[in-house]
């Protein structure tokens, strides 16, 4: 079910130490809710991304447990503190066991 899943993340390229930055994430995914029916009246099985995490250099920023009420192409916007240069790691966990990962470097001056 997980076709054409593509994460998109927006993180500033650089920041000052301790600066608060805004992160936006979007991942293309049907998020089939398990409530819809096909043309024959059969329920289409649930198939969603059920968890999202954002870490910076191994320290957690945000973890979201997601239910089928999250819209198609799940979007999150949130704020992080960057103490040093490093890497943001974004991870999405699919119902079907797939895991999608995206990383972004940030330079702290």
């Amino acid at each position: 079910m997980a076709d054409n899943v593509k994460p998109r993340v927006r993180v500033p390229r650089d920041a000052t130490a301790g600066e608060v930055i805004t992160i936006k994430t979007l991942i293309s995914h049907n998020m089939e809710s398990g409530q819809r029916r096909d043309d024959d009246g059969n329920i289409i099985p649930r198939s969603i991304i059920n968890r999202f995490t954002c870490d910076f250099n191994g320290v957690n920023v945000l973890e979201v447990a997601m239910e089928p009420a999250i819209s198609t192409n799940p979007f999150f916007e949130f704020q992080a503190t960057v103490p040093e240069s490093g890497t943001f790691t974004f991870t999405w966990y699919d119902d079907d066991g797939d895991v999608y990962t995206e990383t972004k470097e940030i330079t702290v001056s």
Partner: protein
Amino acid sequence: VAVLPVQATAAVDEAIAAFTGGAEMGSEGITLIAPEIAENGNTVPIEVNAPGAEAIFIVAAGNPTPGVATFNFGPLAAAQSGSTRIRLAGTQDVIAIARMPDGSFVKASQEVKVTIGGCGG
């Protein structure tokens, strides 16, 4: 005006109790921003903010399954806030509940009028 069936309200109470353990909820220190009117229930932008919270639980009281998402904030979260887009089956209350570090809970809710429901079918 949608009147919730008895099971639906029970499911909402259950979902909330699973998060709060049945604790009393205050109303200060949490904000929930949602549109008063959403033309398309498939994608309704919402924003929650509860300074200092450990976690924020979002419930759509009128959906077939009320739970929407739980935000758990880590040490590098600069603010205990977040935005996302949610599905609403029809006009209903959206509820946000935050768990504070001292174990207390605070709640905010807002009614969203939905023109086209977002659960298909």
